[in-house]
Structure formats: structure tokens, C-alpha cells
């Protein structure tokens, strides 16, 4: 899976946002407000990957969190992206 649109990420006062790039902004007009793990997921999804690979990377980065909790948050976020039409599977 990967993002259906190319996205640029900006960080401002600790808030992370992502917007579609160029012609892709016609497909997605809005702006995603992201926390740090979500921004990491967006960055990973710029290239073809799998939920398992993303989960593995997140578990390494956020070793203090339970893998099950990360899996739940990841599944929710991927579902949101899918609902927005932002995910190619």
C-alpha cells in the first residue's frame, strides 16, 4: 500500500500538517493535522509498504508503547486515510 496522492509535510509550533502536492491537490483539497506517529506513517506511505512493515517500524520507534496499542492506532489511521481516498492498496 501507499498514498494515493503525493503529500508534503510541514511542522509548525509542534503541530504537523500535510497537504497534497501539485496536481494531486485537485484530488485532495484539505489539510491533514497529524501527531508524530501519524506523520511517520504518512512518510512511510510515500513508498510502497505493508501494514506489517509500518507496525514493525513504529514498534521500534515507540518501544515504550504496547505493540497491540500501536496496531490498533495504526489500523484506525489507515482506515481514516482509506475513507478519505488517500490510500492505494
Amino acid at each position: 500500500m501507499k498514498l494515493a496522492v503525493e503529500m508534503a509535510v510541514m511542522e509548525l509550533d509542534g503541530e504537523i500538517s500535510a497537504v497534497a502536492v501539485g496536481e494531486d491537490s485537485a484530488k485532495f483539497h484539505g489539510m491533514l493535522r497529524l501527531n508524530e506517529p501519524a506523520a511517520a506513517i504518512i512518510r512511510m506511505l510515500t513508498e510502497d509498504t505493508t501494514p506489517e512493515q509500518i507496525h514493525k517500524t513504529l514498534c521500534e520507534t515507540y518501544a515504550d508503547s504496547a505493540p497491540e496499542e500501536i496496531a490498533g492506532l495504526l489500523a484506525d489511521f489507515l482506515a481514516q486515510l482509506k475513507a478519505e481516498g488517500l490510500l492505494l492498496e
Partner: protein
Amino acid sequence: MEFKIRLAGVNIAVSSIYDEVFRLCRDYLTDGVPDCCISPAPADIALERVKNMREAETEGIAPVEYPAPYLETLAVYRRIAAQMLERDTLLLHGAAVAVKDRAWLFTAPSGTGKTTHIRLWLDQIEGSYVVNGDKPLIHIGEDVTVYGTPWAGKEGMQKNVGVKLCGIVFLERGAENRIGRTTLLQSLPLLIQQSYRPNDKSGTEKALALIGKLGSRVPLYRLQCNMRPEAAWTAYRKLSTDTD
């Protein structure tokens, strides 16, 4: 046709296919040494035609078949806007109005009433003038300066000046006139939407970084206003007092 213009302190050599760009830019001609060159190709004109068609489709309006010379003027400004990003200068869709040496930029989606509002300023506020009524350039340095450009919308309201930008105002229609400060995070989506962003990721990231810098250096306001003369006074009183 080849000529040189000076925009936002940058000398630009333009090599155009049609004369319309030269006529549009006549207030901005210079003899200075060019800092960069713009030379639109027929493919740029074709791209502008496609973009116009797509925009009409998105807005649900009938597409207009614009002539190539006009489309070339758009292509030239798109290229200039891309070059300007490298010089910490951003194209922002909005109407910049000034009184003496202080300017404020009113921005909102098309059709909200930016032009109507700044006309109220021209009628009501002595000494007010339009820096650019549609697509000014904004240099974000130690100071933030808004510059007039030839690309000034249907009304062509513009002046070849650079004026200190003292605020950005997000304009909304309202029954009553009301103005207050807003935060960058609240206004970021509209600020991004109203800014020129290139087609590539690194250019977009550069534009986003500049937008962030702009929003943190200039006060941001939300204005709800009607079309009565008091609207201009409500805005001017608040903006000029905050700037003093």
C-alpha cells in the same frame, strides 16, 4: 518579445511569445541586470488552458476558452512565482491595501468580497491605496513587505510599490462588522489554500515553510463584515491601532 521587469526587488528578463505580457508589465519595466530569466514555451500555455478548464469543472461553472496571449500572462507569473520562492518571496491570493507606509492583506476564497471591501477603504479611508488587488508578492525577511505586481485581477488595481505588511486579514461575509485576532494554526488551511505552491514536493515544502514564517511574523485577523462603509472603519480602526 524580450524585456526586463523588476518585481519585489528582483530583476527578471522575460522572453514572451505574445506582446500582451509586455503591455501588462509596462509599469514594472527596468534596465537593471537580470537576476533570473523567464521564457514560457507553448507547452506552458497549453498547461494554463488545462488548469483553467479543471478549475471551472471544480467550481461547477462553464469553462471559458481564453486566448493564448492571456494564458501566456498566467504562465509567466506562475514561473515567476516559482523563482520567487527561492528568494523567500511568496505569491498570496488576496487584496493588499495601504495607508501611507503600512499595508494589510485581505484574503478569502474568490467571490467573498475582497474587492468590495477594499473599495470601501478607498472611499472611506483618506490616503488609502491598493498595492495589488489580487496577486501580490510578499517578501518574508527581517521585515515582511508586500509588493505590487502587474497581475492584479479583472480590476487591475495595483501600484509599483513595496510596503511594510502589518497584518493579514481573513475576510468573511457577516451581517455585522466584527474583527479580532486569530492564530496561525486556525488560519493555516486557508493561508495554504490561498498561496501559490509549485507542482513538486520540495517546492511545496519550501512554500509551506515560508507560509509558516509569514504567519508567525505578521499578525493575523478574522474579519466578518457587510458591504456598508462602517466595515472599512471597523477594520481600519483595529488594524491601525494594533500597528501603532
